[in-house]
């Protein structure tokens, strides 16, 4: 991770990139170009590998051929040793990009008589440099000369001359030296090589070794002065400048589901903040891993890559166990969305663990990281170191906007569990899973102790694992406290009974009403019929009346007519 502070005051000095992850960042671009650098450390601390990597990267990737002058290992051993890192030195040697020269000085075969110098070495080195046009040189370990030759005064002055000569040649050189008592190297090489000194360390703490690297001195460059853990594995060397990234990381507003619908509801219905750190602590068997798996499964469902750092169980065991709550993690592994990284906590030190995680996160770029359990990492280091290291990890993950879920095993009672965790203050959200014993059974409860930046639920929930995942149940709070398990079931039964009674009552009332309404409607109907009867009667009467009128009129007409008929006979 580039650190702005390390890049200061580097103007004016040309750097030769080592191509070693982290080291170039740490030194603001690499080793001082055209100058010798001393790399010192005890046997087996990785000096040679660092030097070879520097040379290999130069020759293979940066167009800078190099000469490797070894005073200890035979060239074939060297080639074989680094072949495991996929460094094909043989090919580069064939292509005249790397020259290997094994300088063998055997005290028993050499008699010293009078004055001599090391011009032979200069000629060899000069010839090799000129032959392949080398820009880089490694002398590993030049101090072996002290074992082969007697005259210290000559050796010292010749080595001084050698380092000056390398500077004149303008090659970037790494000179390795064995760690001495009270000084950086056994023969005080640091007196001669004063531009840049890198110290490698290999410390054992409680049977666990941690490799560390420190830039002791770098003339003209503000370098990181801390000790940084470094790794040697199948990918070569990587140094982790895991400094605290500070508190300047972005805080996204985006939310990410916890994978447990009921838990999301407690978190304003939307889950955790993306890029936040979530701690799930609890006693043994309280379901921490299940919460982690559920979270990871949910993210994979949305196509987000996840890394699951398993520190206590093997990946296959986790996959098998999670099937019991209906999670098929294997599917995500097969699709390349989920990567398991399983290491025993005691395999290496805390720093190395964190360095590995650092590298894995850089490489895989996950959206979600689960570390299960964080507490076992604490066994791998000093408790005092642990918090600082975890802080670095948390900062790093935040800077990457990776949402991290840490599980942690707690001991003791609830009050203890709630205060015990030394890392809880670093976390944005904290779920506590607690086994409560009552009525002869253990029941799991979930407390959402904190969740920064949201109006989260403060209610205790019962945590139930089913074949279809985790569900959270409301608990009953009665005079005897929180009810879970069968007590809750009994309470639920009572509740159901009451509801049933109420329902029956309502139904009964409903029917009553219906009946009454029907009755009233019938009455209305009757009245309406009565009304209709009266109406029709009325109509009949009025019809009769009008008929009568019509008849009367008719009769009158007829009477008129008859009168006219009677008058006619009287006229003739």
């Amino acid at each position, binding site marked *: 991770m580039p650190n702005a502070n390390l890049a200061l005051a580097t103007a004016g000095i040309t750097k030769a990139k080592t191509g070693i992850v982290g080291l170039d960042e740490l030194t603001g671009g690499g080793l001082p170009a055209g100058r010798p650098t001393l790399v010192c450390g005890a046997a087996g601390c990785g000096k040679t590998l660092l030097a070879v990597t520097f040379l290999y990267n130069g020759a293979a990737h940066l167009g800078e051929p190099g000469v490797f002058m070894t005073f200890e290992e035979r060239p074939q051993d060297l080639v074989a040793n680094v072949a495991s890192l996929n460094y094909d030195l043989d090919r580069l040697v064939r292509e005249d990009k790397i020259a290997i020269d094994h300088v063998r000085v055997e005290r028993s075969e050499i008699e010293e008589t*009078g004055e001599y110098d090391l011009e032979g070495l200069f000629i*060899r080195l000069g010839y090799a440099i000129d032959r392949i046009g080398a820009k880089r040189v490694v002398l590993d370990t030049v101090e072996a000369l002290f074992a082969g030759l007697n005259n210290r005064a000559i050796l010292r002055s010749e080595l001084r001359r050698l380092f000056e000569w390398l500077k004149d040649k303008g090659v970037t050189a790494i000179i390795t030296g064995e760690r001495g008592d009270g000084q950086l190297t056994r023969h005080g090489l640091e007196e001669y090589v004063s531009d840049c000194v890198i110290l490698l360390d290999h410390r054992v703490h409680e049977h666990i070794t941690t490799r560390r690297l420190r830039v002791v001195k770098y003339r003209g460059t503000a370098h990181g002065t801390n000790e940084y853990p470094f790794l040697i594995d199948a990918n070569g060397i990587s140094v982790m400048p895991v400094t605290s990234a500070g508190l300047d990381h972005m805080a996204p507003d985006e939310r990410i589901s916890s994978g447990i619908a009921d838990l999301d509801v407690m978190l304003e219905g939307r889950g955790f903040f993306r890029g936040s750190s979530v701690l799930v602590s609890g006693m043994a068997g309280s379901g921490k891993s299940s919460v982690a798996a559920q979270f990871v499964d949910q993210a994979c469902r949305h196509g987000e890559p996840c890394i699951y750092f398993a520190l206590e169980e093997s990946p296959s065991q986790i996959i098998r166990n999670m099937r019991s709550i209906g999670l098929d993690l294997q599917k995500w592994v097969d699709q390349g969305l989920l990567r398991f990284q399983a290491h025993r906590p005691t395999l290496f030190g805390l720093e190395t663990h964190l360095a590995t995680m650092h590298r894995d996160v850089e490489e895989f770029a996950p959206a979600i990281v689960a570390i299960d359990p964080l507490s076992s990492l604490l066994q791998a280091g000093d408790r005092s170191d642990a918090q600082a290291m975890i802080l670095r990890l948390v900062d790093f993950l935040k800077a990457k906007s990776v949402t991290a879920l840490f599980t942690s095993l707690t001991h003791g009672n609830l009050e203890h569990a709630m205060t015990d965790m030394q890392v809880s203050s670093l976390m944005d959200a904290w779920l506590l899973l607690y086994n409560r014993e009552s009525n002869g059974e253990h029941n799991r409860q979930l407390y959402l102790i904190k969740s920064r930046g949201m109006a989260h639920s403060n209610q205790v929930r019962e945590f139930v694992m089913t074949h279809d995942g985790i569900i959270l149940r409301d608990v009953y709070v009665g005079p005897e406290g929180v009810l879970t398990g069968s007590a809750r079931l009994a309470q639920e039964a009572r509740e159901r009974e009451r509801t049933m009674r109420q329902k029956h009552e309502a139904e009964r009332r409903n029917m009553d009403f219906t009946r009454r309404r029907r009755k009233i409607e019938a009455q209305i109907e009757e009245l309406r019929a009565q009304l209709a009867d009266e109406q029709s009667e009325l109509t009949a009467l009025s019809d009769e009346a009008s008929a009568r009128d019509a008849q009367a009129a008719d009769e009158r007409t007829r009477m008129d007519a008859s009168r006219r008929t009677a008058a006619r006979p009287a006229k003739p």
Partner: protein
Amino acid sequence: MIAAQTDDTGYNLRLYVAGQTPKSMAAIANIRKLCDRYLPGRCTVDIIDLTKDPALAQRHQIVAIPTLIRELPEPIRRIIGDLSDTQRVLLGLDIEDDPGDAS
């Protein structure tokens, strides 16, 4: 005695130098003198100037200059320095220090 001595009569020596430095010149003079005195007629000395043929330095494992190598008789011996200490050179070459005894 004579038969035994005839076995190791032939001395093949190679002296590696680098240019005309005082140490190199001294070494050349010293080995010539020593051969004339202790191994008259039984010794060949090749002088190799590495500044003229630098590739030989690696091939022959030369670190210090001057370096004298006894190729024959076997085993190979190496002596470094200007060869000014005759007793040590004789010891290194495994030659007995009795120049007068030519019988």
